[in-house]
Protein backbone atom coordinates (compact mmCIF):
# COMPACT_ATOMS: atom_id res chain seq x y z
CA UNK A 1 0.00 0.00 0.00
CA UNK A 2 2.87 2.38 0.89
CA UNK A 3 6.45 1.80 -0.20
CA UNK A 4 9.15 4.16 1.04
CA UNK A 5 12.55 3.56 -0.49
CA UNK A 6 15.90 5.03 0.64
CA UNK A 7 14.28 8.24 1.83
CA UNK A 8 16.44 11.06 3.16
CA UNK A 9 15.00 14.36 4.27
CA UNK A 10 16.18 17.63 5.77
CA UNK A 11 14.42 20.98 5.71
CA UNK A 12 17.54 22.61 4.21
CA UNK A 13 17.99 19.94 1.55
CA UNK A 14 21.51 19.24 2.90
CA UNK A 15 23.09 16.99 5.53
CA UNK A 16 22.54 16.35 8.40
CA UNK A 17 19.26 14.66 7.53
CA UNK A 18 16.33 14.62 9.94
CA UNK A 19 15.28 11.34 8.35
CA UNK A 20 17.97 9.13 6.90
CA UNK A 21 17.75 5.97 4.75
CA UNK A 22 14.12 5.36 5.63
CA UNK A 23 12.75 2.16 4.09
CA UNK A 24 9.24 1.11 4.97
CA UNK A 25 6.69 -1.12 3.33
CA UNK A 26 3.11 -0.91 4.58
CA UNK A 27 1.25 -3.93 3.17
CA UNK A 28 -2.48 -3.94 2.53
CA UNK A 29 -4.47 -4.64 5.70
CA UNK A 30 -1.59 -3.73 8.06
CA UNK A 31 -1.89 -1.46 11.10
CA UNK A 32 1.46 0.23 11.56
CA UNK A 33 2.24 2.82 14.21
CA UNK A 34 5.16 5.21 13.83
CA UNK A 35 6.71 5.88 17.24
CA UNK A 36 9.68 7.79 18.58
CA UNK A 37 10.69 10.72 20.76
CA UNK A 38 9.39 14.24 20.20
CA UNK A 39 11.27 15.85 17.31
CA UNK A 40 12.49 12.53 15.89
CA UNK A 41 10.71 13.17 12.59
CA UNK A 42 7.46 11.20 12.98
CA UNK A 43 5.21 14.07 11.87
CA UNK A 44 7.69 15.03 9.14
CA UNK A 45 7.48 11.50 7.75
CA UNK A 46 3.68 11.77 7.83
CA UNK A 47 3.78 15.06 5.91
CA UNK A 48 6.09 13.47 3.35
CA UNK A 49 3.71 10.53 2.92
CA UNK A 50 0.80 12.97 2.50
CA UNK A 51 2.89 14.76 -0.18
CA UNK A 52 2.87 18.10 1.61
CA UNK A 53 6.66 18.08 1.17
CA UNK A 54 9.07 16.33 -1.16
CA UNK A 55 11.86 14.01 0.04
CA UNK A 56 15.41 15.26 -0.38
CA UNK A 57 16.32 11.83 -1.79
CA UNK A 58 14.41 8.60 -2.28
CA UNK A 59 10.80 7.89 -3.15
CA UNK A 60 7.39 7.27 -1.63
CA UNK A 61 4.89 5.24 -3.64
CA UNK A 62 1.29 4.98 -2.50
CA UNK A 63 -1.06 2.48 -4.07
CA UNK A 64 -4.36 3.72 -2.63
CA UNK A 65 -7.37 4.96 -4.55
CA UNK A 66 -8.39 7.18 -1.65
CA UNK A 67 -6.65 8.24 1.56
CA UNK A 68 -8.56 9.10 4.71
CA UNK A 69 -6.72 11.43 7.08
CA UNK A 70 -7.35 12.15 10.75
CA UNK A 71 -5.43 15.24 11.90
CA UNK A 72 -4.65 16.17 15.47
CA UNK A 73 -7.42 18.17 17.08
CA UNK A 74 -5.09 21.17 17.41
CA UNK A 75 -4.67 21.26 13.60
CA UNK A 76 -8.37 22.04 13.17
CA UNK A 77 -10.20 25.05 14.53
CA UNK A 78 -12.33 23.49 17.27
CA UNK A 79 -13.83 26.93 18.08
CA UNK A 80 -15.14 27.21 14.52
CA UNK A 81 -18.92 27.84 14.40
CA UNK A 82 -19.88 24.62 12.65
CA UNK A 83 -22.03 21.64 13.56
CA UNK A 84 -20.93 18.02 13.25
CA UNK A 85 -23.49 17.62 10.47
CA UNK A 86 -22.01 20.56 8.54
CA UNK A 87 -18.46 19.19 8.94
CA UNK A 88 -19.57 15.92 7.35
CA UNK A 89 -21.83 17.42 4.70
CA UNK A 90 -19.29 19.97 3.46
CA UNK A 91 -16.55 17.34 3.36
CA UNK A 92 -18.80 15.11 1.26
CA UNK A 93 -19.35 18.02 -1.11
CA UNK A 94 -15.66 18.72 -1.58
CA UNK A 95 -15.08 14.98 -2.12
CA UNK A 96 -17.81 15.19 -4.80
CA UNK A 97 -19.78 12.32 -3.22
CA UNK A 98 -23.12 11.72 -4.89
CA UNK A 99 -25.10 10.97 -1.74
CA UNK A 100 -24.21 12.15 1.75
CA UNK A 101 -26.15 10.35 4.48
CA UNK A 102 -24.74 12.22 7.48
CA UNK A 103 -26.28 9.99 10.16
CA UNK A 104 -25.11 6.81 8.51
CA UNK A 105 -21.57 8.23 8.15
CA UNK A 106 -21.51 9.24 11.81
CA UNK A 107 -22.94 5.91 12.98
CA UNK A 108 -19.67 4.16 12.04
CA UNK A 109 -18.04 5.78 15.06
CA UNK A 110 -21.21 6.09 17.16
CA UNK A 111 -21.55 9.84 16.67
CA UNK A 112 -24.97 10.01 15.00
CA UNK A 113 -26.71 11.43 18.08
CA UNK A 114 -24.29 14.40 18.11
CA UNK A 115 -25.03 15.46 14.51
CA UNK A 116 -26.58 18.79 15.51
CA UNK A 117 -23.92 19.67 18.11
CA UNK A 118 -21.39 22.44 17.56
CA UNK A 119 -17.90 20.96 17.26
CA UNK A 120 -16.80 23.25 20.09
CA UNK A 121 -19.21 21.46 22.45
CA UNK A 122 -17.78 18.00 21.79
CA UNK A 123 -15.47 16.22 24.20
CA UNK A 124 -11.97 15.34 22.99
CA UNK A 125 -13.05 11.76 22.32
CA UNK A 126 -16.21 12.76 20.45
CA UNK A 127 -14.25 15.24 18.36
CA UNK A 128 -11.75 12.55 17.39
CA UNK A 129 -14.53 10.09 16.53
CA UNK A 130 -16.11 12.74 14.31
CA UNK A 131 -12.77 13.19 12.51
CA UNK A 132 -12.44 9.42 12.05
CA UNK A 133 -15.99 9.23 10.63
CA UNK A 134 -15.12 12.05 8.27
CA UNK A 135 -11.89 10.34 7.19
CA UNK A 136 -13.85 7.21 6.30
CA UNK A 137 -16.07 9.06 3.84
CA UNK A 138 -15.70 7.88 0.26
CA UNK A 139 -14.45 4.43 1.42
CA UNK A 140 -10.70 5.05 1.63
CA UNK A 141 -8.39 2.03 1.42
CA UNK A 142 -5.75 3.74 3.55
CA UNK A 143 -6.34 5.58 6.83
CA UNK A 144 -3.61 7.87 8.15
CA UNK A 145 -3.85 9.26 11.67
CA UNK A 146 -1.73 11.83 13.48
CA UNK A 147 -1.64 11.03 17.21
CA UNK A 148 -5.31 9.94 17.44
CA UNK A 149 -5.50 9.96 21.24
CA UNK A 150 -3.88 13.34 21.97
CA UNK A 151 -6.10 15.37 24.30
CA UNK A 152 -8.52 12.47 24.79
CA UNK A 153 -9.44 10.98 28.20
CA UNK A 154 -8.68 7.32 28.90
CA UNK A 155 -12.20 5.94 28.41
CA UNK A 156 -12.58 7.79 25.11
CA UNK A 157 -9.17 6.49 24.01
CA UNK A 158 -10.51 2.97 24.44
CA UNK A 159 -13.49 3.79 22.21
CA UNK A 160 -11.27 5.31 19.52
CA UNK A 161 -8.88 2.35 19.44
CA UNK A 162 -11.80 -0.09 19.46
CA UNK A 163 -13.11 1.62 16.31
CA UNK A 164 -9.67 1.54 14.65
CA UNK A 165 -9.16 -2.12 15.63
CA UNK A 166 -12.56 -3.04 14.19
CA UNK A 167 -11.88 -1.19 10.94
CA UNK A 168 -8.52 -2.92 10.60
CA UNK A 169 -9.54 -6.46 11.51
CA UNK A 170 -13.09 -6.61 10.11
CA UNK A 171 -12.85 -4.35 7.09
CA UNK A 172 -9.14 -4.95 6.38
CA UNK A 173 -8.56 -1.19 6.27
CA UNK A 174 -4.85 -0.34 6.12
CA UNK A 175 -3.92 2.01 8.96
CA UNK A 176 -0.80 4.11 9.45
CA UNK A 177 -0.70 6.15 12.65
CA UNK A 178 1.83 8.47 14.21
CA UNK A 179 1.57 7.54 17.88
CA UNK A 180 2.69 9.06 21.15
CA UNK A 181 0.50 6.58 23.03
CA UNK A 182 2.96 3.70 23.26
CA UNK A 183 0.56 1.40 25.10
CA UNK A 184 -2.03 1.73 22.34
CA UNK A 185 0.63 1.41 19.65
CA UNK A 186 1.94 -1.82 21.16
CA UNK A 187 -1.49 -3.24 21.83
CA UNK A 188 -3.36 -2.54 18.60
CA UNK A 189 -0.74 -2.28 15.83
CA UNK A 190 0.39 -5.24 13.78
CA UNK A 191 3.86 -3.66 13.50
CA UNK A 192 5.65 -0.60 14.90
CA UNK A 193 8.06 1.63 13.04
CA UNK A 194 10.44 3.13 15.55
CA UNK A 195 12.38 6.25 14.57
CA UNK A 196 15.47 7.28 16.55
CA UNK A 197 18.44 9.43 15.50
CA UNK A 198 16.97 9.84 12.02
CA UNK A 199 16.85 6.11 11.33
CA UNK A 200 13.83 3.85 11.49
CA UNK A 201 13.31 0.17 11.99
CA UNK A 202 10.27 -2.03 11.87
CA UNK A 203 9.55 -4.31 14.81
CA UNK A 204 6.77 -6.38 16.29
CA UNK A 205 4.83 -5.02 19.28
CA UNK A 206 6.36 -7.73 21.49
CA UNK A 207 9.89 -6.88 20.38
CA UNK A 208 9.18 -3.23 21.02
CA UNK A 209 7.87 -3.94 24.52
CA UNK A 210 10.88 -6.10 25.35
CA UNK A 211 13.37 -3.56 24.09
CA UNK A 212 11.90 -0.30 25.35
CA UNK A 213 9.91 -1.12 28.46
CA UNK A 214 11.88 -0.40 31.60
CA UNK A 215 11.86 -2.46 34.75
CA UNK A 216 9.43 0.01 36.32
CA UNK A 217 6.93 -0.70 33.58
CA UNK A 218 7.04 2.69 31.88
CA UNK A 219 7.84 3.24 28.23
CA UNK A 220 10.84 4.93 26.73
CA UNK A 221 10.69 5.42 22.99
Amino acid sequence: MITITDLNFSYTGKKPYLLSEINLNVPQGAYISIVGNNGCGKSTLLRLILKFMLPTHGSIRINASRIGYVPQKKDTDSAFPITVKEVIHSYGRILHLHSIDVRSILSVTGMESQAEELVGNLSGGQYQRMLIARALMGNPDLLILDEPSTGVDVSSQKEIYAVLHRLNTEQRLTILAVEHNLYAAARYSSMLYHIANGHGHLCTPQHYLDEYMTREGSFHA
Partner: protein
Amino acid sequence: MLDYTFMQHALLISICIAILCPCIGIFLVLKRYSMIGDTLAHASLAGVTLGLFFGASPIVSAFIFTSVAGVSIEFLRQYFRKYTDLILAIVLSVSVGIAITLITSGVLHANASAYLFGSILTVSNVDLAVTAALSLAAVATFIIFYHQLIYLAYDETAARIAGVHVKTINYIFSILVAAAIAISIRSVGMLVISSLIALPVASALQLRKGFKATFIASVGYSFFAILSGLVISYYAGAAPGGITALVAAGALLVTMLFTHSRNR
Protein backbone atom coordinates in the same frame (compact mmCIF):
# COMPACT_ATOMS: atom_id res chain seq x y z
CA MET B 1 -37.27 59.31 1.03
CA LEU B 2 -37.33 56.72 -1.74
CA ASP B 3 -38.91 59.21 -4.16
CA TYR B 4 -35.40 60.46 -4.87
CA THR B 5 -33.44 58.57 -7.52
CA PHE B 6 -30.19 58.89 -5.58
CA MET B 7 -31.82 57.21 -2.57
CA GLN B 8 -33.12 54.38 -4.78
CA HIS B 9 -29.59 53.90 -6.10
CA ALA B 10 -28.21 54.04 -2.56
CA LEU B 11 -30.74 51.44 -1.42
CA LEU B 12 -29.81 49.05 -4.24
CA ILE B 13 -26.11 49.44 -3.53
CA SER B 14 -26.73 49.00 0.19
CA ILE B 15 -28.52 45.69 -0.45
CA CYS B 16 -25.54 44.49 -2.50
CA ILE B 17 -23.13 45.49 0.28
CA ALA B 18 -25.29 43.95 3.00
CA ILE B 19 -25.07 40.56 1.27
CA LEU B 20 -21.48 40.75 0.06
CA CYS B 21 -19.65 41.95 3.17
CA PRO B 22 -20.70 38.98 5.35
CA CYS B 23 -19.89 36.59 2.46
CA ILE B 24 -16.25 37.56 2.70
CA GLY B 25 -16.30 38.74 6.32
CA ILE B 26 -17.21 35.37 7.79
CA PHE B 27 -14.18 33.70 6.19
CA LEU B 28 -11.81 36.59 6.95
CA VAL B 29 -12.85 36.62 10.61
CA LEU B 30 -12.72 32.85 11.00
CA LYS B 31 -9.29 32.68 9.37
CA ARG B 32 -8.14 35.48 11.71
CA TYR B 33 -7.52 37.71 8.68
CA SER B 34 -9.79 40.61 9.66
CA MET B 35 -7.00 43.14 9.09
CA ILE B 36 -6.70 42.11 5.44
CA GLY B 37 -10.07 43.79 4.93
CA ASP B 38 -8.65 47.05 6.27
CA THR B 39 -5.53 46.78 4.12
CA LEU B 40 -7.53 46.10 0.98
CA ALA B 41 -9.85 48.98 1.80
CA HIS B 42 -6.79 51.25 1.68
CA ALA B 43 -5.74 49.57 -1.57
CA SER B 44 -9.18 50.34 -3.01
CA LEU B 45 -8.62 54.06 -2.36
CA ALA B 46 -5.44 53.85 -4.43
CA GLY B 47 -7.51 52.15 -7.14
CA VAL B 48 -10.13 54.91 -6.99
CA THR B 49 -7.52 57.66 -7.34
CA LEU B 50 -5.90 55.84 -10.27
CA GLY B 51 -9.33 55.53 -11.90
CA LEU B 52 -10.03 59.22 -11.39
CA PHE B 53 -6.58 60.06 -12.75
CA PHE B 54 -7.04 58.01 -15.92
CA GLY B 55 -10.71 58.95 -16.36
CA ALA B 56 -11.96 55.38 -15.81
CA SER B 57 -14.79 54.15 -13.59
CA PRO B 58 -13.51 54.45 -9.99
CA ILE B 59 -15.35 51.26 -8.97
CA VAL B 60 -13.79 49.25 -11.81
CA SER B 61 -10.32 50.64 -11.12
CA ALA B 62 -10.79 50.03 -7.37
CA PHE B 63 -11.79 46.44 -8.14
CA ILE B 64 -8.77 45.87 -10.40
CA PHE B 65 -6.24 47.47 -8.04
CA THR B 66 -7.71 45.77 -4.95
CA SER B 67 -7.67 42.41 -6.77
CA VAL B 68 -3.99 42.92 -7.59
CA ALA B 69 -3.32 43.84 -3.96
CA GLY B 70 -5.28 40.81 -2.68
CA VAL B 71 -3.49 38.41 -5.03
CA SER B 72 -0.15 40.01 -4.04
CA ILE B 73 -0.89 39.39 -0.35
CA GLU B 74 -1.63 35.75 -1.12
CA PHE B 75 1.53 35.47 -3.22
CA LEU B 76 3.77 37.21 -0.66
CA ARG B 77 2.47 34.89 2.05
CA GLN B 78 4.85 32.23 0.69
CA TYR B 79 7.85 34.53 1.23
CA PHE B 80 6.93 35.94 4.63
CA ARG B 81 5.50 32.82 6.27
CA LYS B 82 6.48 33.85 9.77
CA TYR B 83 5.78 37.58 9.37
CA THR B 84 2.44 37.69 7.60
CA ASP B 85 1.51 41.03 9.20
CA LEU B 86 4.54 42.48 7.40
CA ILE B 87 2.81 41.74 4.08
CA LEU B 88 -0.12 43.93 5.10
CA ALA B 89 2.28 46.75 6.01
CA ILE B 90 3.93 46.49 2.57
CA VAL B 91 0.65 46.54 0.63
CA LEU B 92 -0.72 49.30 2.86
CA SER B 93 2.38 51.47 2.29
CA VAL B 94 2.24 51.16 -1.48
CA SER B 95 -1.53 51.79 -1.60
CA VAL B 96 -1.55 54.78 0.74
CA GLY B 97 1.52 56.14 -1.04
CA ILE B 98 -0.25 56.10 -4.40
CA ALA B 99 -3.49 57.53 -3.00
CA ILE B 100 -1.91 60.39 -1.04
CA THR B 101 0.42 61.32 -3.88
CA LEU B 102 -2.40 61.54 -6.41
CA ILE B 103 -4.86 63.31 -4.09
CA THR B 104 -2.41 65.95 -2.86
CA SER B 105 -0.66 66.61 -6.18
CA GLY B 106 -3.78 68.22 -7.63
CA VAL B 107 -3.81 66.05 -10.77
CA LEU B 108 -7.24 64.59 -10.05
CA HIS B 109 -10.23 66.27 -11.66
CA ALA B 110 -12.72 64.88 -9.13
CA ASN B 111 -13.10 64.78 -5.38
CA ALA B 112 -11.66 61.57 -3.92
CA SER B 113 -12.69 62.39 -0.35
CA ALA B 114 -16.19 61.03 -1.08
CA TYR B 115 -14.55 57.61 -1.14
CA LEU B 116 -12.93 58.14 2.24
CA PHE B 117 -16.18 58.77 4.10
CA GLY B 118 -18.72 57.38 1.60
CA SER B 119 -21.31 59.32 -0.30
CA ILE B 120 -24.72 58.32 -1.56
CA LEU B 121 -25.30 61.46 -3.57
CA THR B 122 -22.91 60.76 -6.40
CA VAL B 123 -23.85 57.21 -7.42
CA SER B 124 -24.29 57.19 -11.20
CA ASN B 125 -26.18 54.71 -13.38
CA VAL B 126 -22.83 53.33 -14.55
CA ASP B 127 -21.73 52.81 -10.93
CA LEU B 128 -25.00 51.03 -10.26
CA ALA B 129 -24.61 48.73 -13.27
CA VAL B 130 -20.99 47.92 -12.36
CA THR B 131 -21.99 47.26 -8.74
CA ALA B 132 -24.83 44.94 -9.76
CA ALA B 133 -22.59 43.00 -12.17
CA LEU B 134 -19.77 42.61 -9.63
CA SER B 135 -22.25 41.62 -6.91
CA LEU B 136 -23.83 38.91 -9.04
CA ALA B 137 -20.43 37.54 -10.03
CA ALA B 138 -19.22 37.62 -6.41
CA VAL B 139 -22.33 35.91 -4.99
CA ALA B 140 -22.16 33.24 -7.72
CA THR B 141 -18.48 32.61 -6.87
CA PHE B 142 -19.36 32.40 -3.17
CA ILE B 143 -22.11 29.84 -3.84
CA ILE B 144 -19.92 27.73 -6.17
CA PHE B 145 -16.98 27.57 -3.72
CA TYR B 146 -19.03 27.62 -0.50
CA HIS B 147 -17.93 24.20 0.82
CA GLN B 148 -14.31 24.64 -0.26
CA LEU B 149 -14.16 28.02 1.48
CA ILE B 150 -15.59 26.52 4.68
CA TYR B 151 -12.92 23.84 4.69
CA LEU B 152 -10.07 26.23 3.91
CA ALA B 153 -11.04 28.13 7.05
CA TYR B 154 -11.86 25.12 9.25
CA ASP B 155 -9.31 22.47 8.26
CA GLU B 156 -7.02 23.32 5.37
CA THR B 157 -5.10 20.03 5.59
CA ALA B 158 -8.27 17.98 5.17
CA ALA B 159 -9.26 20.18 2.23
CA ARG B 160 -5.87 19.61 0.61
CA ILE B 161 -6.15 15.83 1.04
CA ALA B 162 -9.69 15.88 -0.38
CA GLY B 163 -8.23 17.39 -3.55
CA VAL B 164 -9.17 21.05 -3.08
CA HIS B 165 -6.82 23.35 -5.01
CA VAL B 166 -5.99 25.45 -1.97
CA LYS B 167 -3.89 28.09 -3.74
CA THR B 168 -6.44 28.60 -6.52
CA ILE B 169 -9.33 28.97 -4.08
CA ASN B 170 -7.30 31.42 -1.98
CA TYR B 171 -6.62 33.55 -5.07
CA ILE B 172 -10.29 33.40 -6.06
CA PHE B 173 -11.23 34.45 -2.55
CA SER B 174 -8.83 37.41 -2.74
CA ILE B 175 -10.65 38.61 -5.86
CA LEU B 176 -14.00 38.09 -4.11
CA VAL B 177 -12.80 40.31 -1.26
CA ALA B 178 -11.64 42.91 -3.79
CA ALA B 179 -15.08 42.91 -5.44
CA ALA B 180 -16.89 43.40 -2.14
CA ILE B 181 -14.61 46.26 -1.10
CA ALA B 182 -14.75 47.98 -4.50
CA ILE B 183 -18.54 47.89 -4.35
CA SER B 184 -18.70 49.13 -0.76
CA ILE B 185 -16.24 51.98 -0.96
CA ARG B 186 -18.67 54.29 -2.78
CA SER B 187 -21.43 54.01 -0.22
CA VAL B 188 -19.80 53.38 3.17
CA GLY B 189 -16.34 54.82 2.51
CA MET B 190 -12.90 53.34 2.81
CA LEU B 191 -12.48 54.13 6.49
CA VAL B 192 -15.38 51.98 7.70
CA ILE B 193 -15.44 49.08 5.24
CA SER B 194 -13.51 46.86 7.63
CA SER B 195 -16.18 47.41 10.29
CA LEU B 196 -18.82 46.10 7.89
CA ILE B 197 -16.68 43.09 7.14
CA ALA B 198 -15.97 42.21 10.76
CA LEU B 199 -18.74 43.54 13.04
CA PRO B 200 -21.84 41.72 11.65
CA VAL B 201 -19.85 38.46 11.81
CA ALA B 202 -18.64 39.28 15.33
CA SER B 203 -22.29 39.80 16.38
CA ALA B 204 -23.45 36.57 14.74
CA LEU B 205 -20.64 34.59 16.39
CA GLN B 206 -22.02 35.57 19.82
CA LEU B 207 -25.14 33.50 19.06
CA ARG B 208 -23.04 30.29 19.02
CA LYS B 209 -24.76 28.56 16.11
CA GLY B 210 -23.58 26.41 13.20
CA PHE B 211 -21.91 27.85 10.12
CA LYS B 212 -25.01 28.37 7.97
CA ALA B 213 -26.98 29.92 10.83
CA THR B 214 -24.02 32.18 11.71
CA PHE B 215 -23.74 33.29 8.09
CA ILE B 216 -27.48 34.04 7.80
CA ALA B 217 -27.36 35.97 11.09
CA SER B 218 -24.33 37.94 9.76
CA VAL B 219 -26.31 38.95 6.70
CA GLY B 220 -29.19 39.98 8.98
CA TYR B 221 -26.92 42.15 11.15
CA SER B 222 -25.34 43.59 8.03
CA PHE B 223 -28.73 44.52 6.53
CA PHE B 224 -29.79 46.11 9.80
CA ALA B 225 -26.60 48.19 10.11
CA ILE B 226 -26.47 49.36 6.49
CA LEU B 227 -30.15 50.16 6.09
CA SER B 228 -30.26 51.90 9.48
CA GLY B 229 -27.18 53.87 8.45
CA LEU B 230 -28.84 54.89 5.21
CA VAL B 231 -32.10 56.02 6.81
CA ILE B 232 -30.48 57.82 9.76
CA SER B 233 -27.92 59.53 7.53
CA TYR B 234 -30.74 60.81 5.28
CA TYR B 235 -32.39 62.59 8.19
CA ALA B 236 -29.19 63.51 10.03
CA GLY B 237 -27.45 64.81 6.93
CA ALA B 238 -24.30 62.85 7.73
CA ALA B 239 -22.35 60.34 5.64
CA PRO B 240 -23.94 56.88 6.00
CA GLY B 241 -20.62 55.08 6.56
CA GLY B 242 -20.01 56.44 10.04
CA ILE B 243 -23.57 55.82 11.20
CA THR B 244 -23.49 52.31 9.73
CA ALA B 245 -20.31 51.54 11.68
CA LEU B 246 -21.86 52.89 14.89
CA VAL B 247 -25.07 50.88 14.41
CA ALA B 248 -23.01 47.72 13.71
CA ALA B 249 -20.97 48.31 16.88
CA GLY B 250 -24.18 48.98 18.85
CA ALA B 251 -25.75 45.76 17.56
CA LEU B 252 -22.64 43.84 18.64
CA LEU B 253 -22.82 45.36 22.13
CA VAL B 254 -26.53 44.55 22.52
CA THR B 255 -25.97 40.99 21.29
CA MET B 256 -23.09 40.51 23.72
CA LEU B 257 -25.22 41.76 26.60
CA PHE B 258 -28.13 39.55 25.52
CA THR B 259 -26.06 36.39 25.17
CA HIS B 260 -24.19 37.11 28.39
CA SER B 261 -27.42 37.48 30.37
CA ARG B 262 -28.90 34.38 28.70
CA ASN B 263 -25.87 32.25 29.58
CA ARG B 264 -25.72 33.33 33.23
